């Protein structure tokens, strides 16, 4: 793929995501965003979650999409998961073998996850707030494009998550 085409693809995905978050006026932002991302990026699993205030090593999801459908939310510990290096830190990309790298992560094993991209979400004073995670049974391709898209949606998602935590947690 030429450099021009690669750049164009990155811009298209980011632009689509930007349009979604800028124009969204529904009443289930997290659910619709997760479904949108799963469809656009073609991944089996998407989750958005917040750090539990009473336990800063546990995440509670506000949405969990599995194979095109929203499923029940869950709480999980960060220990021994790829999310450990994402929350409060940086965007991480595990192209393959992620379930082998994290043998103690039962969800990765049960869901047969091979590839993972996670991006941190921060509160208004830059404190660790939560994360958004994409997972798939095969390699998540075009990670540069995906990372750019996650950056684009982060600001509104952080605001929405902060509001959710303040109101409901």
């Amino acid at each position: 793929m030429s450099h021009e085409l690669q750049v164009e693809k990155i811009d298209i995905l980011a632009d689509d995501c930007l349009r979604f978050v800028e124009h969204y006026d529904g009443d289930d932002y997290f659910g619709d965003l997760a479904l949108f991302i799963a469809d656009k990026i073609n991944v089996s699993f998407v989750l958005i979650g917040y750090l539990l205030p009473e336990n800063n090593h546990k995440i509670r999801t506000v949405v969990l999409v599995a194979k095109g459908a929203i499923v029940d939310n869950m709480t999980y510990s960060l220990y021994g998961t790829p999310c450990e290096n994402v929350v409060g830190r940086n965007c991480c990309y595990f192209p393959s073998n992620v379930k082998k790298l994290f043998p103690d992560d039962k969800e990765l094993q049960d869901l047969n996850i091979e590839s993972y991209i996670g991006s941190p979400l921060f509160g208004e004073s830059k404190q660790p707030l939560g994360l958004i995670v994409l997972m798939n049974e095969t390699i998540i391709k075009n990670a540069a494009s995906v990372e750019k898209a996650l950056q684009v949606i982060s600001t509104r998602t952080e605001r929405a998550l902060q509001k959710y935590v303040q109101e409901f947690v």
Partner: protein
Amino acid sequence: MYIRDLNLPSNSKEVLHSIIMQAKHSGYYFRNLLDDFDSFSITSFNPDTGRLVLVLKSQDKHQLIYDSVYLLFFDINFAKAIFGDNWESHLVALAEADDKILYLSNHINLDNYESRITG
């Protein structure tokens, strides 16, 4: 398996130190202290996962323990800092590489980043 800095093969130690220096030089943000860090030592390194624990030291003798968890191989900003624009293809290749240090030493120009090895 964790390898203590002092027990690292010298070539692996040089690769790791050079990579850290290159990342710093390229603007990777290690948080807090490292903006002005003067030297560092490697406390431990897991060659399978890339977990790297550093003690960072500033000129005024402050120290910070930095636990990367999975710094080397999977942090996108770190990969950008050491691989540049081709970070994605390198991370894909690195995930499959049996000897990640060898891969890094073969794909990064290490000559420009001499480090002060204190470990």
